[in-house]
């Protein structure tokens, strides 16, 4: 099925609905459980996509090569653009920054609200950053995709997201030793 396309709004609305179903219906009182489920769905997608996109490639020689593949080819397949900036501490942590992450540009988030996460009073944070929270719920899906894709390439890791500079979004990959 090379080259088949669907409208972007199909994918967007399916992902948005999946996230809100898990947050509001299936795991309504348990945001952590909802997050794990959403991540697991992403993981499955990443695993399979990475399998398909690397079928005709030689194995990657090291972690950096595999990460570069995620930043370039893999990201381009999904978002029609590459990751804009890649940083590493050379000890197994990589930061992949997308300056305009497509799945966040569709949402309306007040940037000032994302800072509420750093507030000392957690109850204030929860009321003020409702939309930031829902955005962060959406980010478990791409985090899962990246983790699944790297796992398929033989690199077990943990992936988290940082959206303190919207609409930029950074994905932090920590490779498990």
């Amino acid at each position, binding site marked *: *099925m090379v080259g*088949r*396309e*669907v*409208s*972007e*709004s*199909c*994918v967007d*609305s*399916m*992902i948005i*609905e*999946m996230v*809100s*179903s898990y947050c509001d*219906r*299936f795991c309504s009182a348990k945001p952590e459980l909802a997050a794990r*489920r959403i991540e*697991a*769905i*992403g993981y*499955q*997608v990443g695993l*399979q*996509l990475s399998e*398909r996109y690397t079928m005709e490639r030689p194995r990657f020689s090291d972690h950096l090569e595999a990460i570069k593949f995620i930043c370039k080819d893999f990201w381009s*397949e*999904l978002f*029609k653009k590459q990751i804009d900036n890649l940083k590493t501490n050379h000890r197994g942590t990589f930061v992949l920054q997308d300056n305009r992450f497509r799945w966040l540009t569709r949402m309306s988030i007040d940037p000032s609200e994302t800072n509420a996460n750093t507030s000392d009073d957690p109850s204030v944070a929860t009321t003020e950053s409702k939309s930031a929270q829902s955005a962060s719920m959406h980010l478990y899906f791409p985090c899962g995709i990246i983790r699944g894709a790297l796992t398929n390439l033989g690199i077990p890791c943990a992936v988290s997201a940082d959206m303190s500079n919207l609409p930029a979004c950074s994905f932090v990959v920590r490779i498990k030793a």
Partner: protein
Amino acid sequence: MAPLAPRTGDAVFANVERVNAELFTLTYGAIVRQLLTDLEEVEEVNKQLDQMGYNIGIRLIDEFLAKSNVSRCVDFKETADVIAKVGLKMFLGVTASVTNWDVDGTSCSLVLEDNPLVDFVELPDTCQGLYYCNILSGVIRGALEMVSMKTEVTWVRDMLRGDDAYELRLKLLKQVPEEYPYKDDE
């Protein structure tokens, strides 16, 4: 005079933002798989997929009306045609044929010529009873409800269940008269 309703969605599909269908297909597959694990009962999964589709349909209708440039359908026959040739094309890039009308023109079948939801899908025996594509029937039901048509949309043939095609049965239950707070020409 309103522009004539386009009879195909080709031009609209060519102009919307499109993405690689693999992401769509695999994401849907992963959702179904996770729901089967979390909800356990196949019947419940069918119900939730339909509900998710409904929620999507009530939102997608706005985009459909904004971009498709179709004018008001005169009857349910025209509505079914527009779904089959314009709606499905615009979002999924496929079309359906409309067949098996009943005598009073209130129920018909959409036979999908192609179905991007099911690429790479094979159902294990444990999933008997699953209507894998139930999200799609929900989308159509939700979208039609937003344009005042109460419908029942069910799968009558499903290739994942061994049938020779994907066939959706559309039944118009009730047409709710629209009441506008304004006149057409204002």
